[in-house]
């Protein structure tokens, strides 16, 4: 059973769960930039929450189903149709062999997930099926999908009884985001003015925005280190302050070490949102001490567990 790519769009990759426990070897997490949307899609087609799905960036994607398949769309807001018939997101959908699915430009948010019953079948490399483009690892031949690619689909293990994500479990996708964040290792190197403004600025996501990270524009900061610092570990959600004073938020493909001061760290509970930020979006950082951030993470897990029992593997 396969699915064929008709139009690959800007950057469509196979993404599943992250690579864990290999950052000391230089191996980044990768995986779905918005893992919550990946999980919601997989939930609707009866897959493991982190089963491999398609992640389409900004410009959408067109594919043809080569056999009868159940699928679901989640993530960014975009128009979508099957052979010209409009489709709803967050719903279990049925495709017949030969049907063509078109996902259009994302109106808000950056990434749409297409989950199919059985999941996409690609080789697992270093513990995950996720594509890591910079090193051509994982996914479909380590690269973004191209026209004509045929991707194998696995055996469905049985469909769920509910076929729609309840309204209270559809994450809002917006042009304005609030990300809870904690102070990080080099926060103390900011000058007093910078310490005040870090959590009190309306940032805009810059043009450079990809799976590795995003520029935060709208304020410039001074750190009192002499130029660059010795390379130190960084993680998805780390907010760096390079020499030019413009903050950079690292995302799913964050490299494992970096040479810039780390001034803040997006709280674990909100890291999945990084995958939906796009150039021009407005962002505020909400300061949390680590204990409140942990309490809020656990409250979020408690809320989501009703629909996604394995939420702690996802967020």
């Amino acid at each position, binding site marked *: 059973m396969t699915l064929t790519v008709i139009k690959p769009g800007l950057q469509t990759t196979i993404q599943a769960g992250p690579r*864990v*426990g*290999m*950052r*000391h*070897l*230089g*191996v*980044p997490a990768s995986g779905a930039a918005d893992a919550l949307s990946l999980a919601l899609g997989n939930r609707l087609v009866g897959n493991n929450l982190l089963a491999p799905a398609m992640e389409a960036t900004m410009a959408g994607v067109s594919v043809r189903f080569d056999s009868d398949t159940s699928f679901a769309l989640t993530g960014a807001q975009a128009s979508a149709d099957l052979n010209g018939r409009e489709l709803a997101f967050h719903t279990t959908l049925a495709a017949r062999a030969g049907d063509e699915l078109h996902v259009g430009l994302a109106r808000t948010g950056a990434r749409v997930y297409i989950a199919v019953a059985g999941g996409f079948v690609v080789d697992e*490399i*270093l513990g995950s099926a996720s594509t*890591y483009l*910079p*090193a*051509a*690892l994982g996914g479909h031949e380590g690269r973004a999908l191209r026209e004509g690619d045929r991707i194998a689909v696995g055996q469905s293990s049985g469909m769920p009884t509910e076929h729609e994500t309840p309204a209270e479990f559809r994450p809002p996708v917006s042009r304005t985001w609030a990300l809870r964040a*904690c*102070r*990080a*290792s080099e926060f103390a190197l900011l000058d007093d003015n910078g310490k005040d403004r870090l959590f009190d600025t309306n940032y805009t996501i810059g043009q450079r925005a990809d799976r590795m990270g995003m520029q935060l524009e709208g304020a410039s900061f001074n750190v009192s280190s002499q130029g660059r610092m*010795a*390379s*130190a*570990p960084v*993680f998805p*959600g*780390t907010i760096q302050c390079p020499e030019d004073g413009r903050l950079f938020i690292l995302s799913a493909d964050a*490299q*494992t*070490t970096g040479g810039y001061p*780390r001034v803040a*760290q*997006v*709280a*674990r*509970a909100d890291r999945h949102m990084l995958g939906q930020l796009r150039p021009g979006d407005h962002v505020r950082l909400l300061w*949390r001490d*680590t*204990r409140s*951030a*942990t309490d809020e*993470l*656990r409250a979020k*897990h408690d809320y989501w567990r009703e629909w996604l029992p394995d939420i*702690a593997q996802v967020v």
Partner: protein
Amino acid sequence: MRSRSSRETLDTRILVCGDDLLSVSLDDIRACQELADRLRDSGDWLESVAGIDSVMVQFDSATIDIDLATKRLDEELRQAPDAPDTEPELAEVPICYGGEFGPDLGDICEQLDLTRDEFVALHVGREYRVDMLGFTPGFAYVGGLDDALNVPRRKQPRVRVEAGSVGIADGRSGIYALAGPGGWPLIGRTPLKLFDASEADPFRLHAGMRIRFQPVDRDEFDTIVETIAQS
């Protein structure tokens, strides 16, 4: 009365870096590697990564409170470092210098006012250590370069650098385990296979390992590549 609150007795080198991240500042890269390895082996942490002068660990904040994580880290930090029972493994890394494998070698020699042979003699003339893996999967930062070989990174990174490429920059050699983009000026390439996804331990080089470079010519390079392909 002396206060016994845990806060005051915790090691001051521990820094909270997020709701699931803790960092330890150390002054020595070997101490960083030893601690990072020890923490990873303890099984208490999701990730344990050494930098040049710090170690960062990630824990599962859904089930472990930050106070407990900090206390564990503090205890593990207080334990005496593992005495190295053996010298770290020595990896012999053959390099075919210059030509298509080392397109920047000519420029570097000109910059440093060295002949090609002088450059190679200086580069193979000592034992090195892998300071860390990072930047891209398996990329080895190899420390200990002769001061006479200090050059900056390229202003324009290359879109593609082949696997096995060896560069130098900012006092280190860098070895690319995988093909990908890269900004290090390239001096040559090793025929060794540095990444093999089918192995349980897919990377040939690791932090802390000792390294010796050996110059090989193009024929020897090809022979080694063939031998590896057949085995």
